[in-house]
């Protein structure tokens, strides 16, 4: 309490900003006025202790300022970053790779660091960036041309810049790095191009690589025999979303993407480890402690690239360190995060490719529900029951909140494809032919049976859905919850809104004018709570009307 008061006094007195030590990030939940890492804390619950905005007064929320990104790029560039806020300064990334430092109270710019990615960059799915990491006075940004850059948080000048991988081969870095102790950890995207996925840790001071964990073991390494013949070499298994960390166990957890080619697994028989899995690594060495594969031999593009949400629950009468995971494959899982043991799994959306999970959490496959040359209709579709959009866990309500795609299927069509470095390696399509898009150019003609978006609240102890908030279009927005039982999220319909986290009742909404393709966050300055979210090409900061 003394420490918190002191920090508030320092901020109120002027612009004193303390360095972001590793210890501060470990205890990020104790300084809720800041947002020190991508998901708020190492446990990635995206849950804030701030309570000024409540279910009663949230109706008085209004914009305080709007920052418009000046990307100078094609309009399809999405603003996916979650901002960091450190002692009154907000740091974010405008697409594709410009770091911006703003006064978090007014939106006024302190500085901008512009980085022009190499023209060789070829990120599959947008020239996007999801945010920054910070340690000391240094910000860390991963770029779409596969560089990792350290930038001085005060002056906006680069400190070091290293090339991590070859962008011309399809490697791209789109995630927010994760700082653990004195290291910066990143993973690489590029699954659509048949890269060999990996996680790597770098010295924060120098950029020197400390360890690297390949998500596809080579011959002679454990689990290489889960790949037929020589199929392991160009099979993706990328990592494009920030992991989590348990300081007590010193384990860092990361979701691994699907194997390639995406929809045609003929040439890569076997379970294809560690694709479509979560891996738990020793944070100091990168050594694998355990893994759990959600979708063995994935032919559906069911990346397990979701946020590993860590929680300490009372589990069947005993305290247990668990991991909550709503997977793109349509199942919700609870794992023991010490051992990787499967504890519970249940569908949270319609699932037709598997009839359930066995006692070890392995899916029980449904015969014939695989991509085919004639096309096979499968639930969920290739964008999944959820995707990279941050879920949230509220220790107050005990509920896990999932941005979901319900009633959603696609026709999986298998085709032949040859691996060529730098070219797409899909092996078919997960979209199939349609009579016409149900959503086109931002216009929504969708019927409910063609899929809809929803916030679904799951009780992790049972996997049962407690409530849902339905949207007529699907959603790519993350979820934030607060200790005042509020839930903030958005969707493709260009609303940013607040629900009562206890029952899903709509409490407030605001039209932001473009889809929300990012996760909201909250912070406080001089006792005033803000909620910030990126939508379209803008970053919005809301607070209560005064």
């Amino acid at each position, binding site marked *: 309490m003394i420490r918190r008061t002191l920090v508030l006094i320092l901020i109120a007195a002027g612009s004193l900003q303390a360095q972001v030590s590793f210890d501060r990030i470990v205890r990020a939940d104790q300084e809720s006025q800041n947002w020190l890492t991508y998901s708020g804390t190492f446990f990635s619950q995206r849950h804030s202790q701030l309570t000024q905005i409540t279910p009663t007064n949230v109706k008085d929320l209004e914009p305080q300022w709007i920052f418009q990104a000046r990307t100078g790029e094609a309009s399809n560039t999405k603003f996916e970053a979650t901002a960091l806020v450190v002692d009154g300064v907000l740091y974010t990334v405008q697409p594709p790779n410009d770091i911006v430092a703003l006064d978090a109270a007014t939106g006024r710019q302190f500085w901008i660091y512009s980085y022009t990615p190499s023209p060789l960059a070829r990120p599959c799915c947008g020239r996007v960036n999801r945010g920054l990491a910070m340690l000391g006075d240094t910000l860390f940004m991963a770029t779409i041309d596969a560089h990792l850059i350290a930038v001085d948080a005060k002056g906006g000048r680069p400190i070091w810049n290293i090339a991590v991988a070859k962008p011309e081969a399809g490697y791209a870095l789109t995630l927010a790095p994760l700082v653990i102790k004195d290291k910066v950890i990143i993973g690489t995207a590029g699954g659509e191009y048949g890269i060999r996925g990996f996680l790597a840790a770098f010295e924060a001071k120098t950029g020197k690589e400390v360890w690297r964990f390949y998500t596809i073991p080579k011959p002679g390494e454990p689990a290489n025999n889960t790949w037929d013949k020589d199929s392991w070499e160009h099979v993706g298994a990328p990592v494009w979303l920030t992991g989590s960390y348990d300081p007590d166990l010193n384990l860092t957890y990361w979701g691994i993407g699907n194997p390639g080619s995406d929809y045609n697994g003929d040439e890569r028989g076997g379970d294809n480890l560690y694709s479509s899995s979560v891996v738990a690594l020793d944070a100091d060495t990168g050594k694998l402690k355990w893994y759990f594969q959600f979708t063995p031999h994935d032919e559906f593009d069911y990346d397990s690239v979701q946020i590993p949400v860590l929680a300490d629950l009372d589990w069947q009468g005993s305290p247990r360190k668990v991991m909550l995971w709503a997977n793109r494959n349509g199942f919700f899982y609870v794992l023991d995060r010490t051992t990787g043991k499967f504890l519970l799994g249940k569908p949270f959306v319609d699932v037709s490719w598997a009839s359930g999970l066995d006692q070890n959490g392995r899916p029980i496959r449904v015969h014939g529900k695989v991509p085919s*040359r*004639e*096309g096979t209709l499968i639930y969920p579709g290739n964008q999944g029951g959820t995707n990279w959009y941050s879920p949230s866990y509220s220790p107050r309500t005990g509920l896990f909140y999932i941005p979901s795609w319900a009633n959603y299927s696609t*026709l999986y*069509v298998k*085709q*032949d*494809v*040859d691996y060529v470095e730098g*070219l*797409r390696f*899909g*092996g*078919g*399509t997960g979209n*199939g*032919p*349609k*009579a*016409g*898009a*149900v959503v*086109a150019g931002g*216009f*929504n*003609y*969708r*019927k409910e049976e063609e899929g809809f978006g929803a916030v679904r609240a799951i009780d992790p102890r049972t996997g049962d859905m407690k409530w849902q908030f*339905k*949207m*007529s*279009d699907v959603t790519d927005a993350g979820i934030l919850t607060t200790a005042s039982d509020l839930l903030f999220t958005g*969707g493709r*319909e*260009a*609303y940013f809104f607040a629900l009562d986290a206890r029952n899903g009742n709509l409490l407030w*909404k605001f039209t932001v004018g473009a889809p929300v393709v990012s996760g909201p966050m909250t912070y406080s300055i001089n006792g005033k709570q803000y909620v910030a979210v990126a939508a379209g090409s803008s970053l919005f900061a809301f607070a209560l009307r005064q």
Partner: protein
Amino acid sequence: MGIAMRPIRIPVVIVFLLAAASSLLAQQQYTPVEAEIGRQLFTNNCVSCHGPEGDAVQGVDLGHGHFRVASSDSDLVRIMRNGIPATGMPANNLSQEQAKAIVAYLRSIAASAASNAIPAGDVSRGKAIFEGKGECLSCHRVAGVGSRLGPDLSGIGRLRRSVELQSALLEPPAEVRPNNRFIRAVTQNGTTITGRLLNQDTFTVQLLDSKEQLVSLSKSNLREFSFVTNSPMPSYQDKLASQDVADLVSYLASLKAQVNP
């Protein structure tokens, strides 16, 4: 997309033999679903230069295996993706699989044309039918004339093949395209509103009502909200003589105004 260079003179008989062989090959290599994926990609990427029949570039007939440069399916895939330097054929942002699907569609064109032979029609007679006994203007619009409730057909000849137009007249699909859907809403005070759905979200719906007024409704003020399931497009199978249909198809195929699909 465009596949064109210098013309290669090949005896007609040989061309037919090649086309026949290609069709046989197509049956072995491609599935209907691939061809359908290819049709949509072709419409979005290729028709602006090659036309819906694939024969709008001089000396090239994509649907009948008449190419200037390509001699195999892999050639076609390569050309679609890389273009042909110093010609009007650009490189396209297509994956291998997408380009293959377009080849599948091109291989299907000849077969569908052969099984749906269309008699020659007269454009001016077709126009008269369209505006007269066909009553097409009661739903459709051409060059600023007619109803806005159905699809504007001013550029339909740029997008659809004649066989597709004929099929749409004789055997219209049971369900219209999503952007042509009709809805029915009943307000809390009992007023019924029907019209073409323009947009919607969780809280509101926008439509063009039966009086061609732009209307925005709050869903919370509606007692009922539903999609009209039956397509308003009638079949002309028993309403028009076959020559009338041929004339109408010719007229529709002649409508080539530059409009968005």
